[in-house]
């Protein structure tokens, strides 16, 4: 048995001891099977070939590469669709245009599909911040004008819950190898009332990214290893003030908190900090009390997380200049990848961009781990702190998926076309490529964690094990944060961003006052949406 494969299995939650037990041994082999088939099946040559487009270190891929990958991965489509079968069909696809990826990528992937099937796709491109209102308006005004939508699981309550989605046909499940998913993305995520609606194209979790040159012998932090707790993170941020960054020679900085909102998405970053303080292993809830929807945002755990940020704001030089105007896009792409700051939490994009994005300077000095824990956790039920080490990594947003709306119902040709297009961009092989190259998506299938494939593509083995391992650890963590799939969740996040901005700008006298303002605003939102229905859906989303 190869050492790395053994490590992979252990990361899946199996120990050496259980490996040696008979029954568990079988399970372990099955788990290995989940990881191995990509190399064992007939697609291995294809997978190896697409991983070389354009090749790690060969610059950022563009439309030519996307089309090429789309063309090479058309096999499963051709098995089920005749050439020109969808001639005359027009589909509308609504998705994002973040960093010129997402829809731009899909356009490239689907161009060969359009040429082969004869269908035509019209595109609705949305900026990240415009996505939520556009979708909500379409739903509320009953003007859904798209057949296929790129959507996050948090919106399943708004869409599937209102019967706006079309159920996934069985042939699609076969085409995309539906069961090849990491644990937390398995149903009920992607399903509603037992019906499957979602083709996964992304697995979302925040991981901890750090600069390896800030740690180790002779480093400016003087620490051998990266931090394991948020308390250590804050201490490092304070310790490096006044020192020079070893890579750029500019002022060194510690953790990069985004202090400006991002259409609600910025709230995930405070949640990264708060998770270990507020997510008690015995309690599935962390945002609201499940029975009353009473906000927990102003409990001592959340307040501690806000206070941690405020403590750093007060220290001149702890953050880069103008951090008050840095949103997560800035901290991830303009700061961390460009060599400013030494620690960050972000989605996996940072990992895949660190070595493939032209603007990244940190490819050789970046490391990854699970989000830090805390040496204390607040027990909301008991109303008291417990001085025990706690980890609670954040599966922020639960990943993007592709869904087909009920507009295709009643037209079998259009329905098949829509699902075929969605299945093509959510295909098993294409997803390997999107995991490995800048795409906005991160690994989400068991088959993505075959490190040999990445190594063969040109990735450094240690780097990729580090990067993928941090994802896998988070996906399978028993105390990870899975946000409630309730309507209007981004309204809560958005108003929290506004209040946090005031708190960070010093307009509230304390972290507690800031948190109280958020809690008051959240209560208003709950009342405006309907408290009873929110409680019901919250419980359902938590599997209670």
């Amino acid at each position: 048995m190869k050492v790395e494969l053994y490590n992979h299995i252990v990361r899946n939650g199996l120990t050496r001891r259980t490996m040696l037990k008979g029954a568990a041994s079988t399970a372990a082999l099955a788990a290995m099977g989940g990881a191995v088939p990509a190399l064992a099946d007939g697609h291995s040559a294809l997978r190896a070939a697409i991983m070389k487009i354009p090749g790690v270190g060969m610059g950022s891929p563009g439309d030519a590469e996307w089309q090429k990958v789309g063309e090479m991965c058309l096999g499963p489509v051709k098995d089920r669709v005749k050439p020109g079968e969808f001639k005359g069909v027009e589909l509308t696809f609504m998705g994002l245009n973040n960093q010129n990826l997402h829809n731009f990528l899909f356009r490239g992937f689907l161009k060969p599909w359009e040429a082969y099937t004869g269908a035509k796709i019209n595109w609705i491109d949305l900026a990240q911040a415009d996505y939520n209102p556009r979708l909500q308006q379409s739903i509320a005004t009953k003007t859904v004008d798209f057949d296929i939508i790129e959507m996050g699981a948090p919106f399943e309550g708004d869409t599937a819950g209102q019967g706006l989605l079309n159920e996934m046909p069985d042939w699609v499940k076969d085409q995309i190898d539906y069961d090849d998913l990491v644990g937390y993305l398995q149903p009920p995520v992607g399903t509603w009332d037992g019906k499957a609606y979602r083709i996964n194209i992304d697995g979302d979790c925040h991981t901890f990214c750090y600069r390896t040159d800030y740690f180790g012998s002779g480093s400016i932090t003087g620490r051998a290893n990266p931090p394991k707790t948020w308390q250590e993170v804050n201490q490092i941020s304070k310790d490096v003030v006044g020192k020079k960054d070893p890579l750029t020679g500019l002022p060194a900085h510690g953790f990069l908190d985004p202090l400006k909102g991002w259409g609600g998405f910025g709230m995930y970053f405070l949640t990264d900090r708060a998770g270990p303080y507020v997510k008690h292993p015995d309690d599935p809830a962390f945002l609201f009390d499940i029975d009353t929807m009473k906000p927990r945002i102003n409990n001592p755990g959340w307040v501690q997380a806000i206070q941690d940020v405020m403590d750093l704001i007060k220290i001149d030089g702890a953050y880069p200049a103008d951090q008050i105007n840095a949103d997560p896009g800035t901290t991830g792409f303009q700061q961390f990848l460009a060599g400013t700051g030494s620690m960050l939490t972000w989605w996996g994009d940072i990992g895949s961009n660190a070595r493939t994005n032209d603007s990244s300077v940190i490819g050789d000095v970046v490391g990854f781990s699970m989000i830090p824990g805390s040496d204390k956790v607040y027990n909301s039920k008991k109303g008291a702190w417990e001085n025990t080490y706690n980890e609670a990594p954040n599966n922020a947003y639960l990943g993007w998926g592709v869904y087909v709306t009920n507009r295709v119902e009643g037209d079998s040709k259009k329905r098949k076309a829509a699902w075929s297009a969605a299945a093509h961009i959510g295909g098993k092989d294409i997803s390997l490529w999107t995991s490995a190259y800048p795409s906005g998506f991160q690994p989400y299938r068991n088959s993505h964690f075959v490190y040999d494939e990445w190594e063969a593509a040109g990735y450094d083995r240690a780097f990729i094990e580090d990067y993928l391992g941090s994802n896998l650890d988070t996906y399978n963590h028993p105390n990870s944060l899975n946000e409630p799939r309730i309507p209007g969740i981004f309204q809560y996040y958005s108003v929290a961003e506004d209040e946090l901005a005031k708190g960070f700008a010093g307009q509230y006298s304390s972290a507690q006052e800031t948190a109280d303002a958020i809690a008051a605003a959240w209560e208003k939102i709950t009342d405006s949406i309907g408290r009873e229905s929110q409680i019901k859906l919250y419980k359902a989303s938590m599997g209670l």
Partner: protein
Amino acid sequence: MSASEGNYLHIVMPDQISDTRRNFGRFIIWGSAVLLILTVLLQSLDQSNFLSFGFENWRPTLYAYLFWAFCLCLGQVILYGEQGKRRLFILPAVLFVISVVIFPLIFALGIAFSSWNLSSPDGRQFNGLANVYQMWSDPFYWNALKNMIYYTLAILFEYIIAFSLALLLNTQIRARKFFRVAFLMPLMLSPVAVSWMIGKSMLEARFGPISRLARELGWENPSFFGSHEMARAVIMMMDAWTFIPLMMIMILAGLQAIPKEMHEAADVDGAPPWKKFWEITFPLMLPVSITAILIRIIFKLKLADIIINVTSGGPGGATDSVTSFIFREYRDRSNVGYGTFLAIFYLIIIVILMTILIKIADKWMRPRY
């Protein structure tokens, strides 16, 4: 010109309209009105699920309205002949304004007094004065209104700069035409482009060329949007840079319209330049100046795009404008009812303010010849 070429006084005489024609005119107007009312009624019943007619959208009502509008216009001519044709000069415009301004405003008022959160399964619910009470205790809204006062006051400085530039371009300087075009360039740019080019790129704290220059000049950690005052001032400057050319071009047009004889007479009288400006140019330019300022105020009250792109209202609401706050309330929070109420309230403030300003300005508009 000979008399045969039509040098006659054109007099509109009352047409001789037959009863048949009159009845036909009344029929098409009232017939189309009944059709419109019937369509609205049926669509309303269909919409409220009392009866089902299979309407997919409100287009039938729109078509019925357009048909009624056409019949109304046609009916005027049929009923009143030449007098009716005169009415056609204004009637289509009135109908258009009613369609795209009055109707939406009435609907907006309905929404403004509702609780309508797009995520709510209950849809829109009338909630009386709840939105008024919420606004009254909403610190974000009042903060944004306070910021609007600062932004509006900045127009005085913009006016001084615009006037100075206009005076400069009105003199015989070299490359005058080039400068006239060059100074107009910012106005041709979209504020969104300005916010990205300047706010997000040139002023970017680490790589922006202006930040680099600031570092060269000894400012160790330049931050253009870090403090409240600085952020507000930089937003004002970016907005001013975009719109000063608008005021400048209006003032320049006014300057060029001043008769040269007045300045020549002053020269003959031996008036010094400052006296000429203060006693001749400035008073003559008052009507144009006040018009330019009023137009600028209207533009300023809509300020949002630069703020949304660069600061999102931050830090801590220091740069928030009313429009950018409403945008956030509506877009990010899907809070349609409250957002609409805030917009309507703001509209009322603007209408009252502008009416007062125009009344005051009316006295100043008369030049002191």
